[in-house]
């Protein structure tokens, strides 16, 4: 539903487009899942958000205290901090369609 509103509103769309996307990827160690998740995320961002995204990778092995803040249980987890609202996707992001839905990115964009 939100997707539709955003699409109908050109001003909202442009604002969204102008904003830098802040994404956090929570991983634990350099496991195959972590690496796959990072690669998948980067691929999606490159194709849909080129030049206006920022991915922060947080390794919970080094900073376990950060897990509490974003309510991380599963790893890998991507949290979209900006634009609001906060959205969460868990998994290695192999299913691109679901990632796009999860990040609220229109696949046609």
């Amino acid at each position, binding site marked *: 539903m939100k997707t539709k509103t955003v699409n109908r509103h050109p001003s909202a769309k442009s604002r969204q487009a102008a904003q830098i996307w802040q994404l956090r990827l929570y991983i634990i160690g350099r496991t195959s899942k972590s690496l796959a998740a990072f690669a998948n995320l980067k691929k999606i961002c490159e194709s849909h958000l080129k030049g206006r995204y920022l991915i922060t990778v947080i390794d919970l*092995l080094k900073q376990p205290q950060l897990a509490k803040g974003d*309510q991380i249980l599963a*790893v890998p987890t991507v949290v979209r901090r900006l634009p609001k609202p906060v959205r969460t996707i868990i998994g290695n992001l192999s299913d691109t369609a679901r990632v796009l839905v999860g990040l609220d990115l229109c696949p046609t964009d």
Partner: protein
Amino acid sequence: MNGTKSILQLGRLPKCPTGIQGLDEITGGGLPRGRPTLVCGGAGCGKTLLAAEFLVRGAVQFNEPGVLMAFEETEKELKANVASLGFDLDGLVQRKKIVIDHVHIERSEIQESGEYDLEGLFVRLGHAIESIGAKRVVLDTMEVLFASLPNEAILRSELRRLFRWLKDKGVTAVITAERGRESLTRNGLEEYVSDCVIVLDHRVSDQIATRHLRIVKYRGALHGTNEFPFLIGDDGIGVLPITSLALNHTASNGRIATGIPRLDAMLGGKGFFRGSSILLTGTPGTGKTIISANFAQTAARRGERVLFFSFEESPDQIIRNMHSIGLRLEPLVKRGLLRFHSARPSLYGLEMHLATMFKEIAEFKPHVVIIDPITSLMHSGTDSEGKGMVTRLIDYLKAGQVTSLFTSLTQGGQALQTSESAMSSLMDAWVLLQDFEGNGERNRILYVLKARGMAHSNQIREFLISDRGIDVVDAYIGPSGVLTGSARVAQGALEKAAVLAGQQEAAQLKREVGRKRTALERQIGVLRSDYESEALELRRIAEQVGTRTFVLGTERAASGLLRQADVTVEAVTRGKTKPERKPR
């Protein structure tokens, strides 16, 4: 540390005391140390509370810090909830004794894409454990995860890994879970946690709700298998029995006077045994409360502490009523020797009553406890619950060498003995009060039905209540049966009259004999005087004869002289008539 301890205990499972009243007794020392325990039950059973108390007591009493991972309630809510039980969770968190981590996942906010695991949970938990060196972990309620995470297969394998991981960490964990319809838990968590499973239950029977706790499983240890009632009081959870059910209390030889000397006399002359349980049964109005109050006053005046549980009258009412028969309880209350505790039996369930009583007893440390009446308490639960409660109460009191007096109300028309069969076997002494109707009046009688371990009187006594107190008197027993009250007095008067009549008769007889004796004596006197007068007469005649002979002799001599007769005749006559000799 874990390893060395288990070696020291020679294979016995090391245990982690919960500090929860009663739970450690049932489990034989606590939950299995270093292993997870599953606590399951329906909504409102007290799962979270049990888990929270386990943590708080661990931190406060056993210096074992703990982590509470809450999936349902927020930190703030938890703090507020347990604060009502007197647990200062906030303070413990600040002193780094407890870490609370609220895990919150909204399924609608989460999109799943590809493989994942729950390592994040492990990291969070691991971080929390390490930050304070936690020994105890509570996961409340894990099942929320089943609703939050879409992939159940991943969740199940991760949970299995989590419990393994908790064991490896060596923390004692409590995991709470919702009770399922057919299995112990809704999502079958019992498959993963197999060391110890505790089921909580909240049931309503006869409109009274009771919480129960049962240890379904405790691998490698003996445990109580029964369903134990427990309750949530002002200071947390209390599982009953608080004392073990073993029969091993010491028995005192000391005696305790009843305050009624004649009753003491009936009980081997010295009263009840100290630390024994005494049952006082009677129909309404037979004076049960009065005897109890008298017992209380006597004990308190000796300087002993007496705790009086009243389930029918308020303390003021008892004090006022007892005043009318000359018992002064108020000064004893003021001196702190006598304490009343009044509550309506229907106020709460049996367990709550029991726990309240235990608490009062533990606090006041009485020498004598009076429960007036036990029957109204027993009616607030089922028969078996009631008996169980009395058993536990008596056990608890006996363990503390407290003399207990239970009054029991027998309804009119009920057979006295049968109605108390549930309780009587638990009691050491049983005194029965009864109404005795006859001659248009009711009188109270009393007898000792049993008194274990002492020679006691088999007599029925009449029991009198006056404004000077209580007295026990002999009932009149005669050919017409047992007589009490005015009949006894009348019988007494009758006997007195009979004795008086006898006395009068004897006196009369005595007088008669006396009279006869005087008559006899008088007759003897008459006879004697007759005899004496006759004797006198006889002498007089004899004298007359003598004189006549002498005169005759002299005359004969004179005539002989005149006729000149022999001299010899004169001499013989003179010798025969000598008047000096008197017959006596």
